[in-house]
């Protein structure tokens, strides 16, 4: 059963335009020019309970605006949204107790106090008793590998530690729908992995529904089976990540290790050069001519090792985004 239902959703913003300089400022003062920008344009989708869906797009594609409408922060211009049977913009208590929004670049923890203080405030706001609160903090801390960090002022924590505390604060009321806006932004690779593991574990344990936006394909690949690609406010792909790779990849990715360096120009006739670093060459070759290309490469180049794969998901998505932007 769909827990999130979005139909023909649109959001437009009015942006006032101003020319640079004094003349521009004076003109802006007396005759303001407003332009309507359509951030989200007539999108529809459904998400089943327990699904983890990746929301992918370039900066300004409409991902965050969609998330803000889904959690009831901003009013849609048109269309309808139903989350757990609620209209988000009404922000009913029962709805708010069921959702959370985590923003990688923003924090809700009180900067000058230990994270534990913010957790106590959040617990009381959600009506969680002291006993339950302590149990939950213990459980989530163990899942996030947090120990003494909770007793340190937030400003003294590293970015990774802070993000883990943010997640704990956002999940103390055990929401069943998680809106995550770039939760691993700026984190080092180990912290990214830990956050992903935690989200996977949380999803499994509480059968939560997760809608995730991220520019890190690592997040998407390790968490989401289904992705929604959005560009200029419009959805242009909604389906399984695996299907996307198969459907949209008409090329194969060849990694070559050479015995000696070769002039990179010579590889141009075999396909698109993705990377060329002395003894290591990566090529994108059309599937239709894969056999012949391999044969030629093996005969003409000093090859030590060769591997054929599907192209990385990042490249397929980047290529798709480029093609729909044109």
């Amino acid at each position, binding site marked *: 059963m769909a827990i999130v239902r979005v139909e023909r959703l649109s959001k437009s913003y009015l942006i006032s335009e101003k020319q640079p300089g004094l003349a521009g400022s004076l003109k802006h003062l007396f005759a303001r020019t407003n332009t309507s920008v359509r951030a989200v344009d007539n999108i529809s989708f459904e998400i089943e309970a327990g699904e983890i869906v990746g929301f992918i797009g370039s900066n300004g594609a409409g991902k965050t605006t969609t998330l803000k409408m889904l959690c009831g922060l901003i009013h849609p211009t048109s269309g309808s949204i139903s989350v757990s049977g609620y209209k988000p913009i009404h922000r009913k208590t029962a709805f*708010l107790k069921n959702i959370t929004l985590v923003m990688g670049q923003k924090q809700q923890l009180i900067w000058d106090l230990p994270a534990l203080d913010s957790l106590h405030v959040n617990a009381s706001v959600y009506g969680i008793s002291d006993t339950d609160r302590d149990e939950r903090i213990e459980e989530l801390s163990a899942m996030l590998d947090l120990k003494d960090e909770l007793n340190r002022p937030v400003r003294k924590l590293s970015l990774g530690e802070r993000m883990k505390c943010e997640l704990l604060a956002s999940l103390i009321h055990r929401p069943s729908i998680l809106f995550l806006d770039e939760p691993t932004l700026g984190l080092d690779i180990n912290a990214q992995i830990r956050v992903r593991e935690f989200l996977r574990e949380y999803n499994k344990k509480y059968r939560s529904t997760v809608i995730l936006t991220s520019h890190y394909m690592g997040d998407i690949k390790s968490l989401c089976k289904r992705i929604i690609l959005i560009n200029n406010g419009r959805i242009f792909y909604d389906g399984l990540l695996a299907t996307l790779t198969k459907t949209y990849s008409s090329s194969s990715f060849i990694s070559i290790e050479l015995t000696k360096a070769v002039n990179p120009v010579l590889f141009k006739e075999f396909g698109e050069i993705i990377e060329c670093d002395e003894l290591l060459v990566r090529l994108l070759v059309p599937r239709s001519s894969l056999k012949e290309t391999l044969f030629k490469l093996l005969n003409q180049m000093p090859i030590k090792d060769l591997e054929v794969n599907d192209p990385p998901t990042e490249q397929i998505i980047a290529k798709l985004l480029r093609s729909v932007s044109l």
Partner: protein
Amino acid sequence: MGRILPSSVNSIKRYFYIFRSLFISQYALMIEYRAEIVLWALSGILPLIMLTIWKEADISKEFGFNHKWLSSYFISAFIVRQFTAVWVMVIFEKDNIEGKLSPYLLQPINPFWRYYISHIAEQFIRIPFVFIMLLLLFVLEPSFFWSPSLIRIILAIIAIFSAFTLRFLIHWFFSMLCFWTDRASSIERLLMIPYLFLSGLVAPLEAFPPVIRFVALSTPFPYILSFPSKILSGQDVNIINGYLVMFIWMLIFLLLGRVAWKFGLRKYSGMGA
């Protein structure tokens, strides 16, 4: 799912619980900023400056103000001002611009309470500093000392808290302008002018010409400062009438604030978040 306090039976208990947690955290936060709070407290000495000016002015006798009247009034005004400080417009604007309002909006409690309780917590931090400042003042100038009756002290505490709430509600209403214009805190500086002149801070209302006094009493400003100051200083004041007018103003700004909040949220774009 853990045990959630049943809202029907325990709604008062729940709100008390929320208030307690918010108060504890905000009090802890304000302790972190204690040095700043001492400076803010020191910056609120305008009534004491006005006291020295009025004491030296020849015209004070024309209005029937004697030394005791002036000192008890302006020292009371100093105390009232300390506990009615409101800065919600500045902080609300900052939270709105930086996107900090978004997580508050997604919690099942109106953000109003966070700001309101953080102000109350800050005033609790001020209590010892204000007492020290008063003690110093009375030691340096014992003739300033007066002793209000217990009933006047109780009535004054209620009036000061109500005056703070009224001032907070006025500022909260104007804070809502942040939803329409990003820089609404400049309104605070505009509000400062009628507050200074109509509240009785610069001069007691008795010193105003009747027409100006009538205008002043038709605004909420005298109830923010002059009314509680007169109760505390033991001067003649219509207490029931004062409380009633204060309550009406609170109700007006509460309703205006609610309407502005409702319409303002439609304009909220969650910028910075």
